[in-house]
């Protein structure tokens, strides 16, 4: 690979994907800024949430509790619960990118749904890095600028839903998942994970379903690793033999 191919800021497929996602997400930032101020937060508090917390679901959860007059402690609890999935993303991203020093501290702040999704689906190390950093920086700038605009000017995007922004977010995550569904096994896993997520969404607090999906992934990975280890690339007869030998050994 040449130096040119490894340059971080190049207009590659991963970069385009990241910028498209950042554009959709940033428009939501306007809604966040406007809603936060309407919930009773000051401009400073609103800006602090976007700049320092920088994880959209948690931010909306925090101001949602404040808006309904709930205790600040439960706003804190809801926001933190929703941020727990970022720990899983961070482990994934450490395995891919292994940032060090100051880069690690910056990478942590940029670890969100969008950066995990764009980075982990890329095929090469260079695209994984671009997917993470370009998506992260673009989302961070866009989200924070949009927050200030929304907080100062109010919600001129009266309803993000009327523009179909929520549909854009659904399409973006599906678009990232799609290329991974090349064989039957990932299809089955995706369907199981999605079904479980939908089924447990009503009874459990927001933030928990993604953690359960992660647990499904761990169990699935363990089972398929064991199956590969046991079966390997042996023929059916050899597999049968291996199974018998193991049974005998036990």
């Amino acid at each position: 690979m040449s130096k040119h191919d490894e340059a971080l800021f190049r207009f590659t497929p991963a970069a385009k994907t990241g910028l498209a996602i950042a554009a959709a997400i940033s428009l939501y930032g306007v809604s966040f800024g406007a809603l936060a101020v309407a919930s009773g937060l000051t401009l400073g508090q609103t800006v602090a949430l976007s700049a320092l917390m920088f994880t959209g679901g948690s931010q909306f959860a925090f101001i949602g509790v404040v808006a309904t007059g709930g205790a600040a402690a439960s706003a804190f609890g809801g926001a933190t619960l929703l941020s727990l999935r970022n720990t899983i993303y961070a482990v994934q991203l450490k395995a891919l990118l292994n940032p060090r020093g100051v880069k690690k501290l910056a990478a942590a702040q940029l670890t969100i749904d969008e950066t995990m999704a764009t980075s982990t689906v890329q095929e090469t190390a260079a695209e994984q890095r671009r997917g993470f950093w370009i998506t992260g920086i673009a989302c961070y700038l866009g989200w924070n600028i949009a927050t200030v605009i929304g907080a100062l000017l109010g919600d001129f995007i009266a309803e993000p839903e009327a523009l179909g922004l929520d549909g854009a977010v659904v399409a973006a995550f599906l678009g990232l998942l799609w290329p991974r569904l090349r064989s039957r096994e990932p299809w089955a896993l995706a369907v199981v994970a999605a079904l479980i997520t939908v089924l447990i969404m009503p009874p459990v607090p927001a933030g928990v379903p993604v953690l359960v999906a992660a647990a499904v992934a761990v169990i699935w990975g363990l089972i398929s690793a064991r199956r590969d280890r046991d079966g390997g690339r042996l023929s059916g007869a050899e597999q049968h033999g291996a199974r018998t030998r193991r049974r005998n050994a036990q």
Partner: protein
Amino acid sequence: MSLWMWVLLACAAAYTTKIIGYLVPGSWLSHPVVMRISGTMTVALLAALVAMNTFSDGAGITFDARLGALVAAAAALALRAPFIVVVLTGAAAAAGLRLLGIP
């Protein structure tokens, strides 16, 4: 405690959830089973994010224009449309269905 304190505390907690994942020892991550799980994790997390963003409704689930966006996006992907076209298709489908009166 003032609201400001809670804002800063929640921000610190969110950053903690993020940085903790990067402090996992690198040697754990090179284990073959962990690498296998990393692959299944990507698929399961993305599937969960698709499901959540399509059906979530405050405390429960709901079926609305976002489901139309999901179907339209899937159709665009099946036709091998580029990513940006897929995203715009999802937005157009949701916006269009709402114009027709679907919530």
